[in-house]
């Protein structure tokens, strides 16, 4: 009898709780499986760290629902719809791969739910009624900062080798855009696939133009393949890349061949080496501590930090939006969207964010530092 009573009390309590206190509900999608999993898993851990860091806003609890999209855009679309229509989320955050993120963005615009993208979205038209923004540094900026560094290092002729996919195109086009205005010349456009076993042919072609430096448009572990081939052929010039290369496996696989490569990356990568005056220093160290507490592993990548910054943007905007509307309502979604687009000079661990309607990205060159691989560790190069 007592059991039944306590159960009734419990259920009654739950009902009362859910009516009296409308939590803010967040729908988070990432890729825990499929080809995007190697970055999708850090994204997921980053959001756990963010919840660890801040789990309520002005006394309002935040409820997080996480779904896996299997690196598949159609699954991401289904997940986004499910989260909005069944779970009535106030905000979408996602996901690990660009195509899936773009698919989710379409759902967010259609169902009028604010969305914070944690992968780069490019080539999306700017809608009149914009519901989404995008956290990461745009690829064009990533490449621009590296290209500026090449120019500073007095590099003239650049050889390019990258993936034969959208990412390879992004980096190449970014380098080409800088070529138009600067003194560097990009002389090759060699491509390889993520599963290739050898890039000997491509590297021979790159070396044939006698480049001062080689720019790598790969990512993760397989980004090391051209560096290994360059090492085999005794290339003595400098190498450059982007933040996509920054993960422990790249360093492990690249070994000696990857030494000295300079990449543009978010400041969080070298948090402890930043000067104390740097905007990201304190928050990045807090983020690392929260990450360790939430996941029991230290953070070594930049991806989890994008999730963390998405959370920062959301929590500051939500604090303002709560003044005008209650969570779970259409008004709150709209207020949250307006406040996200109102973000001014918000310091995250990757960047200082300024959003406005009509643009997806809200970061500037402060969002990137150049880091060099020295003895297997990334070091800050002011």
């Amino acid at each position, binding site marked *: 009898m007592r059991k039944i009573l306590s159960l009734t009390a419990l259920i009654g309590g739950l009902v009362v709780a859910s009516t009296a206190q409308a939590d803010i509900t967040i729908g988070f999608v990432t890729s825990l499986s499929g080809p995007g999993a190697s970055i999708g898993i850090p994204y997921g851990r980053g959001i756990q760290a963010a919840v660890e860091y801040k789990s309520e806003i002005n006394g309002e609890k935040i409820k997080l629902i996480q779904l896996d999209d299997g690196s598949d855009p159609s699954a991401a679309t289904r997940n986004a719809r499910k989260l909005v229509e069944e779970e009535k989320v106030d905000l979408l955050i996602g996901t690990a791969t660009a195509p899936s993120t773009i698919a989710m963005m379409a759902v967010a615009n259609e169902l009028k739910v604010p969305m914070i993208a944690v992968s780069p979205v490019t080539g999306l038209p700017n809608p009149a009624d914009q519901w989404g923004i995008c956290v990461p540094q745009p690829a064009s900026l990533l490449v621009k900062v590296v290209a500026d560094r090449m120019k500073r290092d007095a590099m003239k002729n650049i050889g390019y080798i990258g993936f034969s996919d959208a990412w390879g195109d992004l980096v190449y086009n970014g380098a080409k855009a800088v070529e138009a205005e600067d003194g560097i010349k990009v002389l090759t456009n060699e491509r390889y696939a993520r599963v290739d076993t050898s890039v000997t*042919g491509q590297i021979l072609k790159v070396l044939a133009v006698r480049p001062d430096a080689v720019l790598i448009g790969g990512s993760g572990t397989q980004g090391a393949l051209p560096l290994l081939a360059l090492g085999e052929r005794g290339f003595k010039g400098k190498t450059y890349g982007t933040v996509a290369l920054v993960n422990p496996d790249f360093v492990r696989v690249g070994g000696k061949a990857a030494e000295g490569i300079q990449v543009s990356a978010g400041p969080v990568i070298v948090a402890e080496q930043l000067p104390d005056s740097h905007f990201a220093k304190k928050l990045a160290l807090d983020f690392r501590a929260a990450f360790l507490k939430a996941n029991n592993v230290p953070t070594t990548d930049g991806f989890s930090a994008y999730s963390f910054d998405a959370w920062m943007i959301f929590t500051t905007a939500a604090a303002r939006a709560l003044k005008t509307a209650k969570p779970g309502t259409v008004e709150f979604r709209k207020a949250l969207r307006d406040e996200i687009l109102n973000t001014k000079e918000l310091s995250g661990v990757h960047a200082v964010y300024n959003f406005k309607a009509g643009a997806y990205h809200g970061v500037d060159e402060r969002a990137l530092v150049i880091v060099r691989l020295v003895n297997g560790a990334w070091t800050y190069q002011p």
Partner: protein
Amino acid sequence: MTADIAAILAIDGIATGAVYALVAIGTVLIFTVTRVIFIPFGDIAAFTALTLAALDAKQLPGTVGLVVVLACMACTMEVVSLARAGELRAVPKAVLGYLVLPLIVVGIVWLTMRFNPPMPVRIVLALLLIMPISPLLDRIVFRPIADASVLLLLTVSVALHFALVGLGLLFFGPEGVRTEPLTSMAIDIAGVHVSGQTVLILAAALVFSGLLFLFFDFTLIGKALRATALNRTGARLMGIRPARAGTIAYLLGSLMAGVSGILIAPVNTIFYDSGFLLGLKAFVGAIVGGMASYPGAALGAFGVGIIESFASFQSSTLKDVIVFSLLIPVLLWRSLASQHSEEEVEE
């Protein structure tokens, strides 16, 4: 394209081709004996590389979990089917073959790992651990449909590949691995730098092709396999068990795939899903050889490797397109030139 660039590309292509050749020979071997086009072959090679990398890192490889799960499934199926047929006397033997043997292998690996064995021992362990997977898959997936059409077997094989990729992610995680080079030696042939790894890959391909040739021509089991390949029914009448022949073919094939996995592990980063393209390119090589002759398959695979290497220099973006476009003329030529025998007609 100068002469020395061509030489470098040719050597690179031969090295890649040798890896494809090992997988292609295995594919042909399994196809001729069981009529299954074993698409997951590349996955087996990739899993071997991942296993070796885990052993190098002194971690228990994910393969252990995979083998244990498959062994339990295969053993259950075997026991149930025996019980249905009323052959309860054969149960202990089945349990021994399908459950105890794989578990013994796992136990050996688990025990040996504690002593930080040297590289050659680790390679043997990785091969040992990978060998049971294909025969177990054969028992679970293909044995119940052994008499189905080639097309159905192929469809099931493709489905199996996707299942294995999912399992690979579960057991090995999403990150790629790369193992230490087996040798850091290098030689210069006519002014072209050839790494010791390349020589090893070639030697392995030649040795294994040679061993297969000897096995088929000079041992009773080999002859039995050939008989099964030629005519299943006839072989059965002569007292050869097609099921057992299939198991042996899968074991041998796994060994080939395993060796090729060990060989590419230091040359390239292997992911849990890297096997598919490897298997597919080897398959193109095997098709060139008509899916029937080992030297043909090996030559085809070398051809694929060399073409791939030159294509990567000429037009790196279209490399895979060029390789797979090769299939079309080859298939046309094969279908126009070959005589369709009555054997191939479905009964």
